């Protein structure tokens, strides 16, 4: 697969834009998934994941083909997500009614930060609950936990993606796991 990817990359470098389409097709779901888990919102996830591909395209000549393309791509995407999370200003209120949804408020739109009453959490479906619990994690634990448990990447790959020492990644996984345990309690 790496060989195929590198072949396509070389075509892109030669100016063949269409060759990039194959690369996007190959990685779209994994990249979208990570962005969705990081941001907890489908529109934002699509926007950031697409932006990550655009950046990859523009900077493709800086990619070292001896390395894994997916690692490089994940690095671009996680950096964009982290930037977005940090810059995100609360330009809406959770209680505000979403237009055209007959009284649904923003709680139903985003599964993100902010604690909900326990009984409401228990009524959530498993998929929704996953997103809710991840969203409650501090951003620096959230990133490693997503890469470790949702992408199931080896610790070394996570260290390469985040450009952090392996020891730091391990510590963050441990703390993230501990934080999850505490917030989820005895399920």
């Amino acid at each position, binding site marked *: 697969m790496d060989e195929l990817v590198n072949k396509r990359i070389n075509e892109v*470098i030669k100016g063949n834009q269409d060759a990039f389409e194959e690369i996007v097709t190959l990685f779209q779901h994994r990249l979208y998934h990570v962005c969705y888990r990081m941001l907890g919102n489908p529109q934002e996830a*699509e926007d950031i994941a*697409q*932006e990550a591909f655009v950046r990859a395209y523009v900077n493709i000549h800086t990619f070292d083909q001896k390395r894994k393309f997916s690692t490089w791509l994940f690095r671009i995407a996680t950096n964009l997500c982290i930037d977005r999370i940090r810059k995100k200003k609360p330009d809406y209120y959770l209680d505000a009614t979403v237009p055209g949804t007959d009284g649904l408020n923003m709680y139903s739109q985003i599964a993100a930060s902010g604690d909900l009453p326990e009984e409401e959490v228990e009524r959530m479906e498993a998929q929704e609950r996953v997103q809710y619990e991840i969203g409650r994690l501090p951003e620096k634990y959230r990133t490693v936990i997503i890469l470790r448990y949702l992408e199931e990447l080896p610790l070394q790959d996570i260290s390469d993606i985040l450009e952090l020492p392996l020891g730091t990644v391990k510590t963050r996984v441990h703390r993230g796991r501990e934080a999850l345990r505490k917030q*989820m309690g005895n399920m």
Partner: protein
Amino acid sequence: MNTCQEPVIQLMHAYLDGDISRQDEQQLKEHLFACQHCREMMDELKMSALFLQGAAPLKAPDGFVSGVMARLPKEKSQAGLQRQLRRHPLLAAAALFFILMSATFFSSFGDNQQFSFTKQPNLVIEGETVIVPAGEIVKGDLVVENGNLRIEGEVDGNVTVIRGSKYMASTAVVTGKSEEIDRAFDWLWYKIKTTVKDIFPASKSEPVEE
């Protein structure tokens, strides 16, 4: 509260990371067997990890790929070229050389305003006009630069007028090719042709400046 926290918790995480030595694993198992509190904690850690791993992978929405392709900056044969140049410095050097060379060609087109023509017997000069008189036959090619040419007689060869005009009388005969050059590109092409001819000398006549 638990009194056996830190070192054991480290072992639990090492176990969950999958990098625990056989000896440490044995130690952890013995401890968990003996200590209910740690056993519960270990179960909770395992459960939360398992819970996350049970999350269904999400798929990118339809139209994601075409959305990316639409957002790409327009290629941009230029960008491709830039990348090529970055990758092949020799090509870049050659391109630069060519650009500079063509600049000298173009600038000399504008600079050289002097009237000159091919010296041939039986030509008549009036100011900046070269005349091939009626009844005369000029043997060989004829080049006039920055001046006019009036042909009343016969030219047995090619006729070229650079930045000037050519009048042909009804009695005029030109056996070779006849051209007028007044644009930089024509001139560049002409220059290249004559340079090549100079290297492989096939032409008999040379322009002489007056």
